[in-house]
């Protein structure tokens, strides 16, 4: 199988879906000749033309709102928000409109849009080009929130998102774009939205994570294995609605749970994961449910030592996993 990068998986999924289905088109700021500021839409305008690769005016609420109208009519828009930090002007369109169209019309209308947004830090992006904004959307029935961690998952889930009949927020960790590479089949495939994925089987502790942090968890698990500690690592993949079954099973399996994410701790999706476990499988636990997350500060500063302070890394995760294992 060819090995490609996380961002190439995005581009491939877009290209293949646009070839497969004429109704699929992309819109956003600089997605055309520039190919997106991260180059995720590189080359698409050459193949599909200006009409299906639309450089929009600088207005996120319109990007999403126009996409909603087009989707309701029957198109399959994929909107790009240049940085997740700039999704906020579109929150009304996402939460009050896209997520509620099916419900409020009693299933008469629906809204199959995908909104892609690069999130997360570690790229000297400072307070407004590093944010994790998942928590904003993780309580919105009608919406699906996906945050893959590997090229394989990116491609399979982005395709699934485009084919999904409901609105999907697709969060891509920007630090993963060129850092994370992996095998991706050449044949067409989709992965199920709503399913968590066990990225590593283990017996002693269970770790839940997603995005860049998932890789730190896997690396730490590797190290711990050498010390005889076996970690069960679950990639949440879909952050809303959560895959409660897999979560509960995985938690019960080892009885020791650590939740790891880059997003702020308080109010982050890890809280809901912990709550599900504490409600459903409490008596299977042998230790408090631990969370290792970004500190509760607005976002990560530009200053390198401060950014580093905010970011997770393999060492920090290793430490937390080890402590839990030894509990």
């Amino acid at each position, binding site marked *: 199988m060819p090995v490609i990068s996380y961002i190439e998986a995005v581009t491939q999924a877009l290209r293949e879906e646009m070839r497969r289905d004429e109704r699929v*088109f992309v819109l956003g700021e600089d997605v055309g000749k520039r190919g997106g500021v991260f180059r995720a839409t590189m080359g698409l305008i050459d193949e599909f033309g200006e*009409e*299906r690769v639309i450089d*929009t*005016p600088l*207005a996120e*609420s*319109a990007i*999403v*709102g*126009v*996409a*909603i*109208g*087009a*989707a*309701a*009519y*029957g*198109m399959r*828009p994929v909107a790009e928000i240049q940085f997740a930090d700039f999704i906020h*002007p579109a929150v*009304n*369109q996402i939460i*009050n*409109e896209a997520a*509620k*169209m*099916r*419900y*409020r*019309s*009693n*299933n*008469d*209308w*629906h809204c199959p849009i995908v909104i892609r947004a690069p999130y997360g830090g570690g790229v000297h992006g400072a307070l407004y080009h590093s944010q994790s904004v998942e928590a904003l959307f993780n309580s919105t*029935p*009608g919406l*699906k929130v996906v945050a893959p961690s590997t090229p394989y998952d990116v491609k399979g889930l982005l395709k699934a998102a485009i084919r*999904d*009949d*409901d609105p999907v927020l697709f969060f891509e960790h920007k630090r993963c774009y060129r850092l994370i590479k992996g095998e991706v089949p050449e044949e067409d495939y989709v992965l199920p939205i709503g399913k968590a994925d066990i990225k590593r089987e283990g017996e002693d502790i269970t770790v839940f994570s997603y995005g860049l942090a998932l890789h730190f968890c896997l690396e730490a698990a590797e190290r711990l294995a050498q010390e005889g500690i076996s970690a069960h690592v679950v990639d949440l993949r879909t952050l809303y609605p959560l895959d409660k079954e897999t979560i509960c099973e995985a938690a019960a399996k080892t009885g020791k749970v650590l939740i790891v994410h880059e997003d702020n701790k308080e109010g982050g999706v890890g809280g809901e994961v912990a709550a599900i476990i504490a409600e459903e499988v409490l008596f299977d636990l042998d230790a408090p449910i631990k969370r290792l997350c970004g500190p509760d500060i607005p976002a990560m500063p530009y200053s390198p030592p401060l950014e580093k302070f905010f970011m997770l890394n393999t060492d920090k995760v290793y430490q937390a996993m080890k402590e839990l294992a030894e509990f």
Partner: protein
Amino acid sequence: MAENRHKALGLTDEQVVEMYYYMLLARKVDERQWLLNRAGKIPFVISCQGQEAAQVGAAFALKKGVDYLCPYYRDAAVVLVFGMTPRDLMLSAFAKPEDPNSGGRQMPGHFGCKRLNILTGSSPVTTQVPHAVGIALAAKMQRKNFVVYTSFGEGSSNQGDFHEAANFAGVHKLPVIFFCQNNKYAISVPLKKQLAVDSVAKRAVGYGFTGVSVDGNDPLEVYRVVKEARERALRGEGPTLIEAVVNRLVPHSSDDDDRTYRSREELEEAKKQDPIPRFRQYLLEVGAMTEAQEKEIAQRVQREVDEATEYAEKAPYAEPESALKYVYAEK
């Protein structure tokens, strides 16, 4: 005898009489809903009263079954022309599951019906405006020949979504008609506290397309400008912003009491401009409608409203657990 203005616009006598019928129908459905509200039978009404001429004039200039609507909550007359029935509106008012707009899930005034090309709407104002632009974009991409009508109040034209959507439509020269019903109030806030420009239509300048202000009490004038806008749109010349100047003849909604902020004199003045008697008089004067026809229409409307009310009131409620349905696609 008064000058016959509708012939010049290509409207037959039957058509203008039908326009009158829809204006009256919308008014009477609305009046009945207020009665039902005051009788404690329905919790909420939001009115089209005073705006029927603008709405019917606009709707007649559109092509039912072809064009799309992204209306706002006062557009009862527009959706009636597009095929919504008084029964549908009453089912919505009584929150019954047969309501085609939302199955009783939304308040009345939240129109939507795929079969009738009416996009489902919400309460946060102006969100429908970018949707209209999106449908128009799809039309352009799919080489379809229709226009999209979207409406909103003058207060709502101050929302960012109006600006962003208008700009987008201007850049892409999309077939959209932005129809602003300026009734000079946003709930209690009078025009001068809402905007400093003397006509909302002037905002079109900022987006590089045509803006037109029209007397919204005159259905024929409204018909004319909307028809022109439609033709422009179909010729690929892009959107038009139309301001129809109207009056709101009742409080903002059944929850409102307008006495603290609106003088009774002003309201009396507004009532004198009521477009319905004015249009009736015109039709009688030019001989497009006879007194007998008028009476018949009034009776027909009354009957339809009665039947609709009775049907909707008696219709069963949805099952409580049905609240759980249709969050996502169901297989």
